[in-house]
């Protein structure tokens, strides 16, 4: 038999359509339901086998990736319009926290970028003026105060008061520590930012911050479809860093990490602080001298994990999975016990994609589910590397009275040094 004659297909342009044409992607959905579940090989407990918070909460298929495919197709084909007085299309599309769990599961059998397609659709909707009213306060906060925390811009630098660190609006440094909106404005997590800066300084890093002149990274705007807003922050940050002579950007927030690493042009070296610390541990430059006898479990933030992957069909959905784990394992006394859903198939905290702002009950439920899972491991603490995750978990722990602490990995690192 001759080599397959491709008279009919796949044509040369097929790949382009397959990967980049929204309508092709939508029609490619086979309704297999992979998007609702974690990697089937990894299911160990039925209770903790789902990956998609929105369909797990709402049950109806519409709230899954598959359902959203159907709805978006109807919209593109002119059979449905995003008119909230007529249907729940916008609600369905915005009750997704853009965690990318469906995207990771779908890639088992599809060469497709589900989450990328969803985000493109959100951008198109925003462009057309089909916006969710519940997002308006957040947009106002961004536009007026350059942050996603409904706080005043002038207070942004308060987290660093007392810190002796370069102010990059006046000085230059090779490294910028970008605190991010959440660490900047959530007092409960100020110490994470403080510990990060002090650690970097202790390691001899030439680091500075922008303090109250820091602005949002733009991830939330991007995930919600407000690309114009995102672009503003991208350009502003890049300019500010260039002017300050920055070569390397370090952050302790996974949302910020995602923006800088994957959305911004490749102009700067970008680290999440866990990557940096892990690197230095392996180089022997960090040694832990104190023992922390504690059993912990680690939560993979979506934007640090699977969302930060650069898609290559058939290749592993990479993210910063191992560095935080390696850090925990190298702290004397820490025993790491994994949850049932981790790494590329982790359950989300519920804070992303504008969900927390528009649908707080869903966001809280999602975090509560994760806390339940963490408690089921017997761990004393759930550790993460993202203030959004940690905040959502703290709220869930308080609401449910769960017998578990919530920690940022930096808190343990600092304690062990």
């Amino acid at each position, binding site marked *: 038999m001759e080599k397959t004659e491709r008279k009919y297909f796949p044509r040369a342009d097929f790949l382009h359509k397959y990967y980049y044409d929204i309508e092709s992607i939508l029609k490619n959905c*086979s309704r297999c339901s992979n998007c609702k579940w974690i990697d089937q090989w990894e299911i160990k407990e039925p209770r903790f086998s789902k990956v998609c918070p929105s369909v797990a909460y709402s049950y109806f298929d519409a709230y899954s990736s598959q359902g959203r495919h159907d709805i978006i197709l109807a919209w593109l084909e002119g*059979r449905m319009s995003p008119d909230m007085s007529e249907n729940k299309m916008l609600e369905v599309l915005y009750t997704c926290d853009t965690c990318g769990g469906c995207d990771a599961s779908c890639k088992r059998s599809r060469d497709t970028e589900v989450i990328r397609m969803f985000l493109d659709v959100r951008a198109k909707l925003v462009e057309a003026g089909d916006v969710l009213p519940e997002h308006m306060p957040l947009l106002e906060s961004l536009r007026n105060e350059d942050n996603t925390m409904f706080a005043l811009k002038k207070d942004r630098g308060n987290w660093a008061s007392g810190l002796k660190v370069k102010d990059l609006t006046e000085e230059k440094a090779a490294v910028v520590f970008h605190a991010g909106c959440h660490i900047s404005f959530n007092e409960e997590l100020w110490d994470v930012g403080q510990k990060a800066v002090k650690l970097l300084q202790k390691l001899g890093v030439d680091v500075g911050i922008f303090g109250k002149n820091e602005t949002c990274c733009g991830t939330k705007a991007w995930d919600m479809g407000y690309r114009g807003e995102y672009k503003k922050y991208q350009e502003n940050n890049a300019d500010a860093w260039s002017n300050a002579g920055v070569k390397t950007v370090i952050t302790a927030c996974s949302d910020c990490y995602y923006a800088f690493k994957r959305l911004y042009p490749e102009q700067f070296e970008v680290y999440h602080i866990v990557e940096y610390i892990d690197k230095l541990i392996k180089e022997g430059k960090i040694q832990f001298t104190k023992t922390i006898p504690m059993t912990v479990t680690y939560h993979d933030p979506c934007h640090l994990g699977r969302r930060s992957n650069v898609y290559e069909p058939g290749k592993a959905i990479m993210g910063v999975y191992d560095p935080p784990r390696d850090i925990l394992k190298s702290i004397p006394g820490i025993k790491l016990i994994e949850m049932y859903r981790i790494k590329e198939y982790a359950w989300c905290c519920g804070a992303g994609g504008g969900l927390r702002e528009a649908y707080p009950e869903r966001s809280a439920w999602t975090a509560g589910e994760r806390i339940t899972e963490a408690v089921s491991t017997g761990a004393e603490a759930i550790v993460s590397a993202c203030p959004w995750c940690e905040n959502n978990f703290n709220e869930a722990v308080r609401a449910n009275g769960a017998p578990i602490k919530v920690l940022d990995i930096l808190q343990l690192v600092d304690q062990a040094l």
Partner: protein
Amino acid sequence: MPRGDKKHQLIFDELVNILGERYVEDDPAVIEAYYRDAISPAGLCEGRHEFIVLPGCTEDVQAIFRLANRYEFPVSVTGTGLFQLSCNAHKEYQYWCFIDPKRMDKIEKLDDDNMYAVIGPYVTIGQLQSVAMKKGLFHGVPGASCQASALAGNVFQNIHWTSWRTGVGRNLLGVEWVLPSGEVFRTGSLAMDNNNWFWGEGPGPDARGILRGHTGHLGSLGVVTKIAVKLHTWPGPAVIPTKGVQPEKKALLPQETFRTFAPTFPSIEASVDFIAEMGKEEIAGYVMKFGPWDFVCWFTSSFEEFWNEWDNEYWTNQKANGHMVAVGLWGVASEEQLKYEEKVLMHLIKKYGGVLPPADIAKRIEDHFNVSTVRDTHRHRFTRLGKVHLSGNNTDSLYDVIRSGAEDRILKDEFTPPLHPMGPQLKFWSYDFGRTTWTEIDSIAERYTEESDRVGGEMMQREVGHGIQHGSVNSLYTCLVTHVYGPHFCNVHQLFGKIKHTLDPKNIANPTRIVDMRALEGQV
């Protein structure tokens, strides 16, 4: 759809009274997520449901059916929804209420010694396996993969990769089933005692004979709300051992217990004879004659990888000349069993002129098949490659494959192009140690073209017509269009129709499926 009319509102309000507001939807966006699937032609997916409901228990399902009888509206149900064609709304019916069983997701019992589990309709195979494997048991996986409903699969075709040993269509024990009247019907040992699930027969004539044929009744005689399902011995680890990150993750089962071999035979007949003798020896955990593309599309991780592999010299030659059989050996009793079975296997491969693949291909197949035949998750890779057309779909004896396969290939070749040239290949896999066998030919065509859409409908018509003319059947189509086949096959449509008419006089349970009762007007 007369959305918003008084009857719609009445039904909606009553459904809310039954289930609560959170679990009833009539929003067009929500409904839009339930109309299509990957395989079915667009023309058969034009209807839309009018209500989507989420019952939480058997009593809820009963109440829904009682309401449906009172106000005469159709009700259908899905499992996890892979085969939506079987339960989507028919455009000529109004007020269609669709049951999504997501809230009925409990594993109520797992009897380790007596090897069964009691499950609701939204327990997936993956979930069931996760519990069963810890007890040294497992539930087989169909092509729909592990994310599919275990219950739905058991009342549908119930064909697993491991059916070589475990058989087809007989994994049900006690069954709880809500009839269209809203009554609960319990079968087997459950008929005598609501808590006694262990056995499925009788008492007396076995009601599972009206629950399922090649497929189940697709909800046209009511909704199965709970089943006891057989589990089988699992000699493997309690948890699937994994390494790495998807889609590059590996799950390597211990080779002392699990091996896969993929000999190629020079002809279909040789592969049939080989399988028959494998059955005579009663060895192996699975035996499947797959077409080359089943191997390649299953173990390649991307679209591009598939096309590169598909066009290489080895697989090009396979397509034309080779007939490859995947054999999985399981050392259930011991490692010595595996060694024994391997010895027998090699003897039979040689006897029938089989040749093993090169080491690198053999390893790819083994690493993939060992685990995917047990915890399959992505059989749908085949649907990413193009528009898939299934033909053949015959289940009968192993040697009947030679007859049906020859006819199936003729049909497929007549439609190539636009079907992609697949070679003279058959896919079939055997149950009960080679006693009966399912055959199917999977072909792909380009997506999104009128031509490839047309092909599916034409092939189906041709197959049905050919079968009626010559006295053979496509097993899957018999269930979808029994009223078309029936007049030529013992008027079976009337038999089913009479049962249906008595149990569902108002024809509210998934109307038009199995038998379109409109075609039987005046006959039942």
